[in-house]
């Protein structure tokens, strides 16, 4: 156990440079890259089994808050497992479709991306979170323009510029937090903020709003969502599918911020952050749902559906009660897998047509079946987990009739948007001959849907476990104690 916590960061950090050296030997690259993904999945499952109490890993054995620490608790273990599962399936898809052949360093960049993601989920230090954000971003810049092309490069510049501005804002927020509290360890900030003199309240509130702003950019909350549709729609299919976890990094960071670092319970913050998040979340849901009606290409439709799912997720996060957080975590797992599935399907469609929602060559029947199932999951219709996720969120929102109306109406809009796209794509074809399906690629998409089905069937045990994770989040005493710090 002692050193296992840092392995999800160290393993890709060692493997990825090796893969750079093997740039001309694709079979070896593929074998090592996939082996890395499998190892990460096994490792994250092993960590999940031990996450019942928070575990601390001190880098260089310096005690918190002076050294940098990694903390494994239920939430971070859950995010690790989700990342590794998604990464493994998408990696297999990229190999099966030959996407990894279109540029020399796909596998190396992919592992660097996983290293950044794992680090961001594990770290217990705010500046370290910034560093891991940069690691995952710089890898994502490479992946985003993988295979190049005019539109992809230009969308890539927008994506990079947007994120560089976000990084600068993050540094400003970090500077403020450090100036006010004198620490950057997340648990220590929680302790210091709770005991802050009233004169410093205004400064920490400014820092809190800036932090939430940065994470909202990552999570693509309206009005900071402008980078997402262009980026996701122009990124290579498998990369867009992996990016399904990127908005969840923002969700994870905001969840940590509003429960641990700057909780509503501390007098300096109060309900400031959740009050800001709720209107943003409702707008995000509306923009995403209405956008699905107006999208002209399937990748753009998928990107807007991703925005809508972020909106639903943040309505639950902004409610900030243990029950709502449980629902949010369940919906987070569901929306990550469902979004990835729709991006992979969009990639299958765009390799045969140009992706616009008009008639074209006939698409294989299994693909149509997969689209149908994914659309059901995305829109939140029974029997798949999207329905259960939305039901859990609605259950946690008793007493908010207008939020109920919003979630239900937006689901209806998404059903319309997805049905319109599906009927145009799969029922109107110019050529009678059916294209040959790529069996391996379709198997990868089917695996994602099988996971969604499993999430539905095992909803009982899963929500019980998630309720424990949510209880941990809303009572961070154990997390703070694991850092070896006195309780506030």
């Amino acid at each position, binding site marked *: 156990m002692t050193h296992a916590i840092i392995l999800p960061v160290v393993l890709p950090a060692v493997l990825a440079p090796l893969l750079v050296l093997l740039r001309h030997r694709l079979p070896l690259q593929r074998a090592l890259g996939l082996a890395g993904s499998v190892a990460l999945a096994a490792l994250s499952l092993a960590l999940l089994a031990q996450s019942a109490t928070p575990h601390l890993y001190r880098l260089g054995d310096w005690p918190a808050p002076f050294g940098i620490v990694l903390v494994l608790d239920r939430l971070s273990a859950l995010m690790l497992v989700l990342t590794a599962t998604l990464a493994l399936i998408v990696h297999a898809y990229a190999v099966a479709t030959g996407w990894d052949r279109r540029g020399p360093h796909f596998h190396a960049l992919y592992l660097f991306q996983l290293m950044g993601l794992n680090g961001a989920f594990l770290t217990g230090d705010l500046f370290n979170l910034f560093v891991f954000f940069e690691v995952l971003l710089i890898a994502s810049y490479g992946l985003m323009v993988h295979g190049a092309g005019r539109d992809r*490069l230009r969308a890539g510049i927008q994506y990079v510029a947007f994120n560089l501005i976000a990084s600068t804002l993050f540094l400003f927020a970090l500077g403020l937090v450090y100036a006010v509290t004198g620490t950057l360890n997340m648990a220590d900030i929680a302790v210091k903020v709770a005991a802050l003199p009233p004169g410093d309240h205004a400064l920490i509130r400014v820092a809190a709003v800036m932090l939430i702003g940065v994470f909202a950019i990552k999570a693509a909350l309206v009005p900071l969502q402008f980078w997402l549709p262009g980026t996701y729609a122009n990124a290579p299919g498998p990369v867009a599918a992996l990016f399904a976890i990127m908005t969840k990094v923002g969700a994870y960071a905001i969840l940590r911020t509003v429960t641990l670092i700057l909780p509503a319970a501390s007098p300096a913050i109060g309900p400031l952050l959740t009050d800001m998040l709720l209107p943003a979340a409702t707008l995000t849901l509306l923009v995403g749902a209405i956008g699905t009606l107006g999208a002209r290409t399937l990748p753009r439709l998928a990107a807007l559906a991703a925005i809508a799912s972020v909106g639903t997720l943040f309505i639950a996060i902004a409610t900030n009660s243990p029950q709502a957080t449980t629902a949010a975590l369940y919906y987070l797992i569901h929306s990550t897998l469902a979004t990835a599935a729709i991006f992979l399907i969009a990639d299958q469609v765009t390799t045969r047509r140009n992706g616009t929602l008009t008639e074209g060559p006939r698409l294989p029947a299994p693909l149509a079946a997969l689209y149908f199932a994914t659309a059901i999951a995305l829109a939140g219709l029974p029997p798949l987990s999207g329905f259960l996720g939305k039901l859990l969120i609605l259950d946690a929102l008793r007493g908010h009739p207008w939020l109920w109306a919003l979630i239900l109406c937006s689901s209806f809009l998404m059903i319309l948007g997805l049905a319109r796209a599906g009927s145009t794509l799969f029922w109107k074809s110019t050529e009678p001959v059916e294209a040959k399906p790529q069996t391996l690629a379709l198997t990868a998409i089917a695996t994602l849907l099988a996971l969604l089905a499993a999430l539905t069937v095992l909803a009982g045990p899963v929500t019980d476990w998630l309720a424990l994770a949510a209880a941990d989040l809303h009572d961070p005493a154990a997390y703070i104690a694991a850092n070896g710090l006195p309780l506030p």
Partner: protein
Amino acid sequence: MELLIAAAIGLLTACGLYLILRQRTFPLIVGLSLLSYAVNLFLFASGRLAPDLPPIISKTATAYTDPLPQALVLTAIVISFGMTAVIVLMSLGAWLTAGHDRTDMDGGDDK
């Protein structure tokens, strides 16, 4: 000195933002660099402004300045340097393939 530092940070941020909003890749990159200079100064000031004090332990020192912001600034400089290199290369690639250097997407919804 506080006024000087604060004015410098404000001026750099304002110029950086103005250049970013120009929607051309060269001003964008210069603007991002100015913003990163501003944030480096800001981080440096977050450990309080203390002239002529050493950040590391020495026998002759009577007081110390906070060494952590200096380490943070160093990290921030390295990262922003790398990121600038990435965006310069991508901009060159986009300029060579697209033939112009505008950063907005033409035809928005086309692709």
